[in-house]
């Protein structure tokens, strides 16, 4: 029952994130989506992943709110009728997740635990995260360089 409620709210939030006109409301709906995804992880016993999603998602969303405020151009208000239609559309889309089901062909397969997997993949993980950080630093350096050249 909880899964059905969470999945319905998740799909409605995702629809609102796409269909709402004002950027800040879109970001608020996206925040709601991410929070409910984290709740799904908690329901599925992936607690560490849920905490990670909350922790990293909070920072991302703070930046997103700021950017949304900067980028919003204050369009005309969404009429209540179209808002209601969006909500109904989201509820309609969430119905398959509630009523349909795909059977698990293999059943529960015992594998490496989360701690073992983290430990076994630590070298790859560190190298890849280092690459990601370097790429981000390079990207931001390029952006700042272009901005400085444009200003000068």
């Amino acid at each position, binding site marked *: 029952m909880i899964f059905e409620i969470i999945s319905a709210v998740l799909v409605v939030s995702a629809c609102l994130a*796409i269909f709402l006109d004002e950027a800040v409301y*879109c970001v608020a709906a996206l925040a709601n989506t991410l929070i409910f995804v984290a709740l799904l992880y908690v329901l599925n016993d992936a607690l560490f992943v849920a905490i990670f999603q909350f922790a990293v998602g909070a920072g991302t969303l703070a930046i997103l709110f700021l950017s949304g405020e900067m980028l919003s151009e204050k369009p005309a208000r969404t009429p209540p009728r179209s808002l209601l239609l969006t909500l109904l559309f989201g509820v309609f889309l969430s119905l398959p997740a509630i009523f349909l089901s795909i059977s698990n062909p293999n059943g529960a397969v015992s*594998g*490496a635990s*989360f701690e073992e997997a983290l430990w076994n993949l630590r070298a790859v993980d560190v190298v890849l995260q280092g690459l990601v950080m370097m790429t981000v630093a390079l990207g931001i350096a390029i952006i700042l360089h272009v901005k400085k050249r444009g200003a000068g």
Partner: protein
Amino acid sequence: MDYVILSLILLAIGIYGLLTKRHLLKVFVSVELIATAATLNFVMLASSLSKGVGEAFFILAFSTDTCVSAVILALLVVVHKKYGTSDIGALVKLEQGKEQKEAEE
């Protein structure tokens, strides 16, 4: 495994937004939704098969996603400051007008 269907619906919503919306921030939100759908599928399948590797890879995928988001947002703010608009159509028109001016000169 209802999660697969849920993640497919999220993916469909994200792709629809990516294809139809013209505001840059909404395109970004659509990309975030697609990434969320992918990670949801990944974690739930790994969790239902009792594989810890899925959760371990989720951390890498989500960190990467966050870093990419930071770069995209920085680009969006720079574009908005430079051109004064976040609409993709208006940006394309601005660029085309610039190219025409250059060609005339």
